């Protein structure tokens, strides 16, 4: 070491702020901090000045004013007389709905495509390669516009389903009717609905509660059953056959409840020029979900493929050498290692899908950007507040999703020593 003299004995000189490594980091940080704060102050100052010039104030009170516009697609009761706040919540719920459905479907499509791309069937793997490359290398906006054009230009109008030799046929056993205005799907109906159950002062649908209780109970029994089987295996070396009990545990209560409440599907039927009875899904929603699913599915397919390929063949061979069969090999050796590679990028794809759902602007689906960042912003003229609120909400959503990812990463991290 060149420092022969202990550093504390050197008298402090001003030049040490720059040339001494102990103080330099402090100097740099102070300069950066002051610089960033000055820049921020400059921005805030400009904003205040500009707002004053335009005679605008900065307040969120517009959120409690009457919205006065209709939203065609809403999960909660909403009328034009409600507040902007409620309109924003409607938009947020629509964003969440489209993101959730998109994530689920994209995962299914992506896993299927990723696995099929690795299949030893030449034709299928080549077709999946073409699907992945085409969808990954073309902007999402194009897919949204193309699918929208298919829905509005190619699909039949509802009235084309009329008559004995109709121009259009319903698909999936006469239960779904895609039309150029909406997609009619069956509605779930409960015949003998039990009365609402009051939980913590709010009435909740009784049938829903019954199903939830049945599922939780079945899950608890199943966990106990698994523990018992494992204990038995540890004691005797033989695992009792329990899979049929597990299946029955979940199937029997569900079937019983469905029969008890008379749950059934009401297919859409044509009445006059429109479908009634079922649910008429807004085409904006269907188009957006389809486009997001196919686009994100292509990315997920690549992630799944990379994850499966990342587990070396030696792992399978070693598991076989230990005497494991194909299924436990997959469940105990391959999947845990592949998932460690797959899940983090998968979650970031979910994040991307959620953010990409703001492209709803291209199909006219009333998401958060369309209500809070669109009509509300234009009506009230409060760009600053509406944009800040909207960005804040998206930010919170993303941070929540990344928090889930970090939790997962922490759980599956290799224990290093």
């Amino acid at each position, binding site marked *: 070491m060149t420092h022969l003299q202990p550093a504390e004995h050197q008298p402090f000189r001003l030049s040490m702020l720059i040339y001494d490594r102990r103080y330099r980091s402090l100097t740099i940080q102070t300069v950066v901090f002051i610089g960033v704060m000055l820049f921020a102050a400059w921005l805030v100052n400009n904003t205040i000045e500009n707002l004053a010039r335009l005679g605008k104030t900065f307040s969120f009170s517009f959120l409690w004013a009457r919205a006065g516009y209709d939203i065609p697609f809403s999960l909660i009761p909403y009328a034009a007389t409600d507040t902007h706040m409620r309109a924003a919540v409607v938009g947020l719920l629509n964003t969440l709905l489209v993101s959730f459905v998109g994530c689920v479907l994209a995962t299914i499509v992506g896993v299927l495509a990723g696995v099929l791309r690795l*299949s030893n069937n030449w034709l299928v793997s080549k077709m999946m390669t073409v699907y992945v490359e085409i969808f990954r290398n073309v902007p999402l906006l194009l897919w949204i516009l193309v699918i929208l054009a298919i829905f509005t230009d190619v699909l039949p109008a509802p009235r084309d389903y009329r008559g004995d030799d109709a121009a259009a046929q319903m698909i999936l056993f006469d239960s779904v009717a895609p039309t150029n205005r909406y997609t009619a799907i069956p509605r779930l109906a409960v015949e003998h609905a039990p009365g609402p159950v009051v939980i913590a002062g709010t009435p909740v649908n009784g049938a829903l509660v019954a199903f939830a209780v049945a599922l939780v109970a079945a899950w608890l029994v199943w966990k106990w059953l698994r523990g018992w089987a494992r204990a038995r295996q540890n004691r005797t070396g033989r695992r009792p056959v329990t899979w049929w009990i597990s299946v029955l545990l979940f199937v029997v209560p569900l079937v019983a409840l469905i029969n008890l409440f008379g749950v059934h599907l009401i297919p859409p039927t044509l009445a006059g020029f429109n479908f009634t009875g079922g649910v008429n899904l807004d085409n904006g929603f269907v188009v957006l979900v389809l486009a997001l699913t196919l686009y994100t599915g292509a990315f997920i397919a690549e992630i799944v493929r990379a994850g499966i390929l990342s587990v070396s063949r030696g792992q399978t061979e070693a598991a076989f050498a230990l005497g494991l069969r194909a299924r436990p090999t997959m469940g105990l050796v391959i999947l845990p290692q592949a998932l460690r590679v797959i899940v983090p990028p998968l979650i970031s794809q979910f994040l991307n899908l959620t*953010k990409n759902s703001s492209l709803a602007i291209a199909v006219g689906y009333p998401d958060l950007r369309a209500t809070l960042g669109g009509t509300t912003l234009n009506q009230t003229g409060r760009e600053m507040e509406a944009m800040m609120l909207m960005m804040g909400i*998206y930010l919170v959503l993303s941070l929540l999703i990344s928090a889930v990812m970090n939790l997962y990463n922490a759980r599956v991290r290799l224990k290093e020593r």
Partner: protein
Amino acid sequence: MSELHAETVPFVRGTMLPQASPPAAERGLYRWLRTNLFSGPLNTVLTIVALFVLWWLFQHFYPWIRHSVWNASSMAECRAIFAERWGEGAAGGCFGVIRERWNQFLFGFYPPSEYWRPTSAFCLLFLALAPVLFTESRQMRWIVVAVASVGAFALSMLSGAPAPELVCIAVGVVVWIAVIEYAPRAALVLTLVFPFLAVWLLWGGSIWGPATILGGAVIGVVVWRLLARFGILAVVGGLAAAALWWWFLSGDAAADLQRMLPLSLPRMESRSFGGFLLAITIGVAAITMSLPLGVILALARQSDLPIVKAFAVIFIEFIRGVPLITLLFVASLLLNYFLPPGTNFDIILRVIIMVTLFASAYMAEVIRGGLASLPRGQYEAAGALGLNYWKMQRLIILPQALKVSIPGIVGTFIGVFKDTTLVTFVGLFDPLKQLADTIRATFEWKGAYWEPYIFSGFIFFILCFGMSRYSMHLEQRLKRDHR
């Protein structure tokens, strides 16, 4: 012994049998089909389903493509041709819209007399890239340089560039090629100068505007070199000198120089940009600026200065947490609030700033992954050699980290390029929506839905697929280990 053996073995073959050909089931097409398509029940079912899907796609799309018409000047003419050739009710692709509006798809509303400017800028871009991207293979570099320079000249001539400008292009290209070949390090300087040249070519105006701004950078570098022995103070001095030049002198200098030596091109409004010119301008600008910004942000996030790190984390997480579309709306609605009253600058510039910030946050995360993947020993070894922070990063850490993160970096590039289409929502004429809608709004091309989508999708596919394949090639070439 041998006699005994001869008695027990009645026949010993003295020569080898000729090699028999494999059985019929293990040969040729039959074998290939059996192993690749029908190796088991599941595979057979998959093959049949796949064939069915292919047949369905073929049945639905082939007639439309077979009936395509390229020589037509309006949708009505197309329909007449369909009816005449394939009978009443036949439908097909009316690709005449691409032929007729080709220039508009490429250049938007840029005046036709100036088409040579974006064209030559695009070709020269490859000359600028050659010393960076095509360093190892001389043959590859020559192909790129030759195609780019011939393209710059020939396309400019074809799109009607005036003679003096053509001479300038020819001389400039020859000099540039000579520099690339004989002084590769100096060619890097030309690469750094190129953005200013491109801005001047695209937007026009006096050349002295971009030139004096470039001059500020040169002054900064000179001051930094002169003060080099003062360490960190040299950086501060260089920045201050450049800032002073830009703040006080560059405007006047540009005006004076313009008076003494007028050199200018007709000025172009940003509104006239459109089509792939717009997409490529925004894409290339954001890509080139986001890489250095991303490196700086990644280093800041990895640094052990808590305040710097905190700012980097806040910036990156904020940008990555919001959709690009909201940032574009900030650019179009809010940016004027944040700037001094009365400032009103170009919408394309605002969009480029936002797309750059967006891309740099993603870039930072990709590069941070590369930095994190380096073993700790690399840092310690660099420290043991006595390198300071910047030398360590420049010579040891970043070359390795960037190499590891090439797939991610190119992935971000592709994402940025695809995202440039979102500018349609702030009223710019991107090739996918706004421009296509404009063309459809005309009387001739009302109802031309699919053809513009297919055309722009095709171009985007070629560019993005090309980038991803190039990154794979680069990854293979830079691979130094045998993992």
